[in-house]
């Protein structure tokens, strides 16, 4: 786990994370309302500002925190793979190293 997350410059762009989230939420709400809503739903959104048609949204800090979570995921993957590579006396992280750490990594997130 990284010690000083605030000092890192490299992280995922919260806006990018937001766009990914919005896409997933849009896809899910479209799936949910597929049968009931007709194609002219978009025109009626303003008129029928019902709560169901209002999508989920996220506040800015939540997005920053999500970016941090994703950054930690990538950093952990690299660090763990690097440990394995080092133990094998390699200076480059290869697919076999990633394979070794993958099961535990996926369990940890």
């Amino acid at each position, binding site marked *: *786990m*990284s010690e000083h*997350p*605030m000092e*890192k410059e*490299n*992280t*995922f*762009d919260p806006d*990018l*994370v937001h*766009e*990914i*989230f919005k*896409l*997933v*939420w849009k*896809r*899910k709400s479209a799936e949910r309302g597929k049968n009931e809503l*007709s*194609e002219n739903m978009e025109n009626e959104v303003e008129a029928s500002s019902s*709560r169901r048609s*209002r999508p*989920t*949204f*996220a*506040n800015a*800090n*939540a997005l*920053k*925190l*999500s970016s*941090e*979570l*994703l*950054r*930690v*995921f*990538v*950093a952990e*993957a*690299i*660090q763990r*793979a*690097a440990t394995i*590579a*080092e133990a094998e006396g390699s*200076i*480059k*992280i*290869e*697919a076999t190293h*990633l394979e070794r750490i993958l099961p535990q990594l*996926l369990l*940890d*997130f």
Partner: protein
Amino acid sequence: MEDLDGGMASEVEREEEEEVTDLLRDRFRLCTISIAEAEAKQCGMEVSQPIISCISDLAFKFAEQLAKDLELFAQHAGRKSVNMEDVILSAHRNDHLAASLRSFCNDLKAKEPTLERKRKKKSRREDRVARDLLRTAGT
């Protein structure tokens, strides 16, 4: 006839959506590359390019799953907006991760204390006004 139109429209929509997803995935990969390379440099390691794109795809899948989780958590709390507690909750299986996110969350909160202070000041002023009103009503 209407059904046919609707079906075609949704198909076009789906294609557009896939294009957008691909674009996002590429932007996401660029971010992953810079993070991964910086991290590898710290360990004194090199990373082969296919490994990074593999990790990036994993992280993207993780992000999509995270989005679903966060939406469900927020809905369960009766909210329409996702907040930091939801994100921390999504990491509850891993104590270390949750603790790390919690400290990051506190750092973010510490960065913007002005809002709360303003709110407090305002409420204090409102209290005083209420007190004055009471006093005038009493006399």
